[in-house]
């Protein structure tokens, strides 16, 4: 049984890549075959990711499950293809699988010319995304990121919207710079650690023996922070993001904003901060300030957007700020919140890009000032969009996963720097302003003249089956985790607590039950999250009350 899961993990990475290669090399112009093959290529990793989520039980020694290792010929520098999942990578692996399926499914019916090449590139991207989060080897983690990134460049350049050439070049140069900085940081980490292998487990073991000097830690972490920061559109290195998403074809934007962008954060959470604790601590205050820049500055920029796709792009930049804030706490609570938020945000933003394109198909424009009254003709689409927007804002109402992420981040932040919670919460107000206004502009009110003009002669359908299916898949997972957060948080707890040692509360609890990491974990973090779908309001109160208590 266990061996099957391990092989499935390997296959989930390579099946899409191999299918993409087959499409590129052997496909004829018959799109039917291409669609069928691609459908299997997209569906398989999604099913595997769900199965592995279900079967996940990490080895207590390493914290990883499904470990496999294949030598590729770079043994001389300690590189081998080592795959496995731990509590941090599992949620993102599931995200990559499901969002990849949704984006791929939507692409199958897209009217793109040269569909075969388009699907092949998307399959490469999907395989790369699965590989990023399945890699235990730091080198392959980077390698798969690039496999996913290069198709984005081509897809924007070839199938993109307006300004696509400029957007593609700018995005590529920006992201290459970020990726190379982080690569140098990773090499520095490997060489200084004295480990004989590039995989995270042996790096960690090597660093437990002798850690790197604090000056070297600070420099190495700076490389990782700014390298990864550029990739996650940390303010002020974000200018590529909205531009690129604005130009990208929908499926590429869904996967890039939804999943690929999490690479940098994941790298910092999984590798950077735990392996370079002193270095991380010395940069976190600056990071928190920059992240507040994401929340507030980009928040206002988002409010000013009139173009729906640009607005979604900027909002995804803004929400990355919350993930960074969670990381900046360097506590199990904050980091755990960041992981949940990454998961939830990935689903949400993919959903928003999908729905944004559905709206565009009906209105013929992305300019929100020219829209209005769409809800009368497409009520179901309106319901989807409003739900996705509420999720993106982080409102607790519909029982969506984003809320738990943001709430946990705020709690962690309170422990870290109390004053930062004020601007962070103000950011939620900003999201509500642009989110609700967008929903209002597009769906409610009177039909505008421009809209009537644009849609003249066309009957406006409500959301169609091929739009509904991916949207439902994304929404279902969002609601599942929203109502049952424990399905994710247990795994996250188990991994994050020993890595980050928890906040103040967790340390006290650890003193109370010496030697029991699980005790620390459950008290420091899990207790703060509801374990079932109790009325959310009460949970909030208990969580915050506990937190105040700890500070008194």
């Amino acid at each position, binding site marked *: 049984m266990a061996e099957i899961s391990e092989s499935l993990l390997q296959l989930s990475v390579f099946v899409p890549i191999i299918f993409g290669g087959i499409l590129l090399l052997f496909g004829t112009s018959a799109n039917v075959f291409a669609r069928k093959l691609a459908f299997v290529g997209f569906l398989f990793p999604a099913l595997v990711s769900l199965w592995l989520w279900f079967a996940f039980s990490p080895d207590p020694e390493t914290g990883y499950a499904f470990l496999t290792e294949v030598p*590729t*010929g770079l043994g001389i520098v300690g590189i081998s293809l080592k795959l496995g999942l731990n509590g941090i990578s599992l949620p993102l692996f599931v995200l990559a699988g499901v969002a990849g399926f949704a984006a791929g499914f939507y692409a199958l019916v897209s009217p793109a010319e040269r569909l075969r090449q388009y699907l092949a590139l998307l399959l490469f991207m999907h395989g790369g995304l699965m590989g990023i989060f399945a890699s235990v080897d730091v080198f392959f983690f*980077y390698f798969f990121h690039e*496999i996913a990134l290069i198709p984005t460049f081509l897809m924007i350049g070839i199938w993109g919207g307006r300004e696509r050439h400029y957007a593609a070049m700018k995005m590529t*140069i920006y992201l290459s710079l970020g990726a190379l900085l982080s690569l140098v940081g990773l090499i520095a980490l490997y*060489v200084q650690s004295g480990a004989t292998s590039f995989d995270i487990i042996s790096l960690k073991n090597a660093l437990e023996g002798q850690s790197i000097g604090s000056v070297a830690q600070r420099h190495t972490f700076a490389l990782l922070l700014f390298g990864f920061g550029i990739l996650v559109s940390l303010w002020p290195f974000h200018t590529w993001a909205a531009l690129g998403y604005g130009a990208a074809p929908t499926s590429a934007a869904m996967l890039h904003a939804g999943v690929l962008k999490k690479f940098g954060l994941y790298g910092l959470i999984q590798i950077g901060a735990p392996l370079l604790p002193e270095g991380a601590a010395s940069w976190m205050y600056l990071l928190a300030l920059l992240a507040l820049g994401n929340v507030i500055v980009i928040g206002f920029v988002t409010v000013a957007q009139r173009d729906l796709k640009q607005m979604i792009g900027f909002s995804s930049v803004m929400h990355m700020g919350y993930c960074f804030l969670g990381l900046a706490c360097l506590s199990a609570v904050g980091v755990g919140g960041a992981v949940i938020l990454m998961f939830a945000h990935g689903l949400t933003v993919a959903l928003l890009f999908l729905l944004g394109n559905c709206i565009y198909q009906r209105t013929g424009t992305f300019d929100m000032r020219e829209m209005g009254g769409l809800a009368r003709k497409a009520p179901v689409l309106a319901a989807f969009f409003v739900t996705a927007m509420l999720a993106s804002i982080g409102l607790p109402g519909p029982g969506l996963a984003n809320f738990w992420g943001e709430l946990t981040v705020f709690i962690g932040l309170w422990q870290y720097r109390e004053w930062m919670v004020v601007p962070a919460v103000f950011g939620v107000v900003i999201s509500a302003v642009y989110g609700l206004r967008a929903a209002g502009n597009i769906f409610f009110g009177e039909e505008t003249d421009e809209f009537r003009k644009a849609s003249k002669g066309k009957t406006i359908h409500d959301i169609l089956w091929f739009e509904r299916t991916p949207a439902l898949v994304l929404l279902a997972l969002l609601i599942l985790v929203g109502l049952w957060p424990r399905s994710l948080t247990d795994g996250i707890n188990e991994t994050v607590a020993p890595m980050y040692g928890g906040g103040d509360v967790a340390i006290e609890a650890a003193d109370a039950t010496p030697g029991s990491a699980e005790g620390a974990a459950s008290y420091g973090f899990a207790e703060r999250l509801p374990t079932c779908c109790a009325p959310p309001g009460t949970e909030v109160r208990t969580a915050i009350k506990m937190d105040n208590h700890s500070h008194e």
Partner: protein
Amino acid sequence: MSDHLIEFKEIAASNQWGAILPEIALGVLALTLLVLEIFLPKNRHVLIPRVAIIGQLVVLVWFLAFFRAGGGYIGQETFGGMLFHDGVGQVMRVFFLVSSLLVCHLATISLAGKQVPKVEFFHIALVVTAALMLLAQSNHFVLFFISLETVTVGFFVLVCYLRYQAIALEAGLKYLVLAALSSAVMLFGIALLYGIAGNPLLEGSSSDSMNFGALNAFLKNHPESNIAIIGMILVIAGVAFKIAAFPFQIWVPDVYQGASTPVTAFLAVASKAAGFAVLLTLVLKVFQPMETILVPLLSLLAILTILYGNIAALTQRNTKRLMGLSGIAHAGYLLVGVIASLYVPWAMGAVVFYLVTYLLGSFAVFGVMAHLSPEDGTGDELEDYLDLAKNRPFLGGVLVVGLGSLAGIPPLAGFIGKLLIFIAAFQAGLYWLLAVSVFGVVLSIYYYFGWIKAAVFQYWQVSPEEAARSREWPEISSISRLILGTLAAATVVLGFFQGPLSDWLGRL
């Protein structure tokens, strides 16, 4: 008198002709081509290039099957210490054979339909290849210089092979003057080294002071000798001309542009790789005692080379000049690897690995270029690549893979080459060089992707501009498809799986 005779006898006894069988085979093949030209009827002359290619293929297969371990001469000096056979030398022999094969294939495309003699091209290419193979194994400044000059003289002819073109003649003249200058400089350096190391009054001197081993032994005793330092700098300057390192790169753009595409490819890949094989030998086996001067010198060269190559290539619109200038940047990264190999032994393998990936990527790109510029001197601008992927998706795909590999984009082989050099540089503590290299790689993304953008990004609908520039697209023969496809596939496979090659290099 009799003493000398005995000495000659001993030297003659060490003439292991078996050790240079591949080179001899190439020489015989080259002569066979000329003989065939005399005896074959004129209408059969088209067969001669095929004979050249098939002959080399046979040599290559035979080498890989039976001679891979150097015919049992690994670790030995032969010909009285003229040659030394080691693992790197064997890899480089295969390297030059493969590049020569590819150059010959490109020549059959490029020279087709041109009013120039064809046979001599293949003859010279074969002789140059044999000389390159000897150069990579030379262990003595006499053989070193002679094989280097054989290569250079061969290139004088090849560069201006299309002699009815003014641009080719200009390129030939520039190459001739500057190569002669660099040879003179290098010869002066060799003379200085020979003189100082052959001075019987100095400790550790040798009567055979041009031998690398003897020179190295002398330099160990006198690492501070000013004459030896000047000699070393001059020799390095001569090699720097071959690898086109700053400030000896000045000839590159004009010569690359003027030469026909196969010759440009030969210069860019084989000539540069030979320079690096030689540099590795010189740095590790000869000048290593003078590390304190050598390392700053090479570091300065590397930094300036990387910056110059990348910055100069940024605004380039001519693809041959672009390949030349970006090739300068590649020389810079390779120099970083050479410096690292002084501290980290496995870095030598990294340099050779990088060279192999550079060969694959460069020939993929040059192969596409050879198809697209039937008339040399035209079809080389980036504008000529517009709509390529739409009309010839195969060439477009090969071009993307080749350029991506040269730019160092995963999952292609070029990335692994750069990664190995970066890791080696980090282990050797060359932080500044590493920083400059990374900066250079980011710059290179701009021009390499600019080229990809020109070739691949297009509107699906035929725009008026496109209709205006509609032109004939070349047909691709099935052999070309096979060769270019193999190059691209090898680039992709080496990006994922480096096993066989790195095993071979790991044993160096």
